[in-house]
């Protein structure tokens, strides 16, 4: 027998209580693991964003279009090296549950601006030469079983064709991969020209312009120059870096980072109280035993070690179960989430953060019961009935 035996035996004396504590902690760490993985994936996406790419959107809303003519004027702004433009809308493949962002690009100018989209030369040529060509990410192709040459009808929710239909037919010209880890392989892109010329309404409108500056140091000046150009016009613009736009897009759904931190924080504060309170209760129950240990010569420090060891063991076991469950959940839903959150996986930093949280939780929740055990007077403890 050693001190660890005492820790283990004490923990197992009330299996229901320790089981419930483990469950609480495991759930909190599971929430942390899953939400932390989301957050990590979003941050990874931001890192993938190029520093010298700016996005010009409508000042009113990200979802509002701006005139295609803006692109020509933006090209003349000093510091702009290259640009391209995009129109996007929500749509789906076959059924509404297969919701996708449908992106229409000016391929000849767009692809050079995005070297992170890796497309073999033959596929690239085929795409450029095919009016209704479509390039799709590897993940999306795997999800729907798409092959090069396959026909893909896409239903666009908010737009209609001149013939009244809302479905555009495409042929897959190529399947692209992402150059960077965590890069998006779940998108698709067709030709803006093909889409625009068949639009019933809103023709010659674009969702945003992508600007590559000659030097990231010029970003601020170029941003000011572009927005000044369209100030007080019918279609004012808001220009920002690609990373900032990504965050703005997310903020339309709510500040995910804040939500994650609040949810995790709330869960941990609750756990702190539950575990701390339960352990104080457990120490109260064992007052006489602690008095006995002190009587036979166990120092207060040694007893604190046993109590703190119990709290740390509960935190560690519950935390690791929770992180393990989170890893399984993330792995199970990663494929389904790829189109929304590319790179969704439990990273080392999330797992490492979880381990730090385990230590923090164990330390903080152990403080009160340890202090109680430390201060306990033998005479009071032995008189307790």
């Amino acid at each position, binding site marked *: *027998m050693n001190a660890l035996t005492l820790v283990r035996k004490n923990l197992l004396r009330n299996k229901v209580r320790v089981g419930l504590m483990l469950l609480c902690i495991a759930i909190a760490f599971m929430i942390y693991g899953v939400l932390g993985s989301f957050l990590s994936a979003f941050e990874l996406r931001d890192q993938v964003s190029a520093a010298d790419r700016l996005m010009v959107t409508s000042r009113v809303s990200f979802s509002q279009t701006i005139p295609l003519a803006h692109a020509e004027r933006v090209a003349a702004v000093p510091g702009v090296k290259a640009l391209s433009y995009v129109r996007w809308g929500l749509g789906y493949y076959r059924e509404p549950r297969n919701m996708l962002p449908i992106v229409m690009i000016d391929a000849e100018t767009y692809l050079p601006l995005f070297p992170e989209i890796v497309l073999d030369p033959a596929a690239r040529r085929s795409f450029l030469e095919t009016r209704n060509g479509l390039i799709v990410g590897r993940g999306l192709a795997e999800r729907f079983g798409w092959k090069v040459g396959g026909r893909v009808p896409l239903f666009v929710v908010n737009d209609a064709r001149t013939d009244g239909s809302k479905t555009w037919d495409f042929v897959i010209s190529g399947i692209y991969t992402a150059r960077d880890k965590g890069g998006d392989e779940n998108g698709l892109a067709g030709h803006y020209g093909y889409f625009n010329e068949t639009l019933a309404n809103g023709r010659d409108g674009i969702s945003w312009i992508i600007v590559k500056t000659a030097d990231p140091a010029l970003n601020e000046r170029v941003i000011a120059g572009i927005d000044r150009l369209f100030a007080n016009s019918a279609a004012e613009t808001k220009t920002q870096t690609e990373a900032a736009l990504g965050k703005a897009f997310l903020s339309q759904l709510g500040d995910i980072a804040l939500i994650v931190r609040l949810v995790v924080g709330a869960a941990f504060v609750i756990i702190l109280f539950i575990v701390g309170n339960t352990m104080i209760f457990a120490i109260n129950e064992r007052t006489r035993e602690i008095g006995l240990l002190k009587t036979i*010569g166990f120092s207060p420090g040694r007893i604190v070690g046993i109590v703190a060891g119990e709290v740390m063991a509960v935190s560690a076991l519950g935390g690791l179960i929770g992180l393990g469950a989170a890893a399984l959940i993330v792995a199970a839903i990663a494929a389904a989430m790829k189109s929304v959150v590319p790179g969704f996986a439990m990273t080392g930093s999330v797992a490492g953060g979880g381990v730090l949280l385990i230590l923090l939780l164990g330390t903080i929740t152990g403080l009160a019961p340890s202090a109680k055990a430390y201060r306990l007077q033998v005479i009071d403890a032995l008189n307790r009935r």
Partner: protein
Amino acid sequence: MNFMPRRPTADPLILIRNLSKSFEKPGATVAIFHDLSMEIGRGEFLAIMGPSGSGKTTLLNILAGIDSVTGGEVWFDGSRVDGLSQSQRTRWRGANLGFIFQFYNLMPVLSAAQNVELPLLLTRMSRGERARQVATALDIVGLSDRARHLPRELSGGQQQRVAIARALVADPQLILADEPTGDLDRHTADEILAMLKLLSSELGKTIVMVTHDPVAAQAADNVLHLDKGEFVSEGQLA
């Protein structure tokens, strides 16, 4: 001055001089002992008797270093112990004292052997040495065949015997027993008392037993009667 019942001992293990103990209550100071002196010889089996509130358990707690004194001196084996710090007293108890309680105070999650082993965790003994010591202690109290049993699987008498084994396993000079038979039937109590007597006579342990049971006190070599914080007589009741 208190009645000083005891003959001076040539080589006392415990020496108490002019002990006073009091505690504060709102608006009053309650004195438990005033100017109490006594000696306890090595290997002596001493019973302290007295009615409830006479101060016998407080005296035992002072001897154990788990209660403090207001004045006077407490000496153990030639060293003064009443002035030790909390942590020094804890270490001192671990090295020199065994304690037997009325309600056994066994750890319910540990087996009999593990309960007996507890004081040895504070020593530098190897696992093997500890196992041998535990086996010997359990053998002395006749519970070798119950080593793996949990306290709830043992009778009251057996639990108290485990407590005795725990008290003697680290080979302390002094064993303090607070009403060790108070929770036992007569027959079992007699067995426990015989065992304590054996520890004193065969193993040379000094035993101080607090009891209000005259039959239990008869097992001791000497009996001191305490009343209202003073020794009032020495010897067995008629």
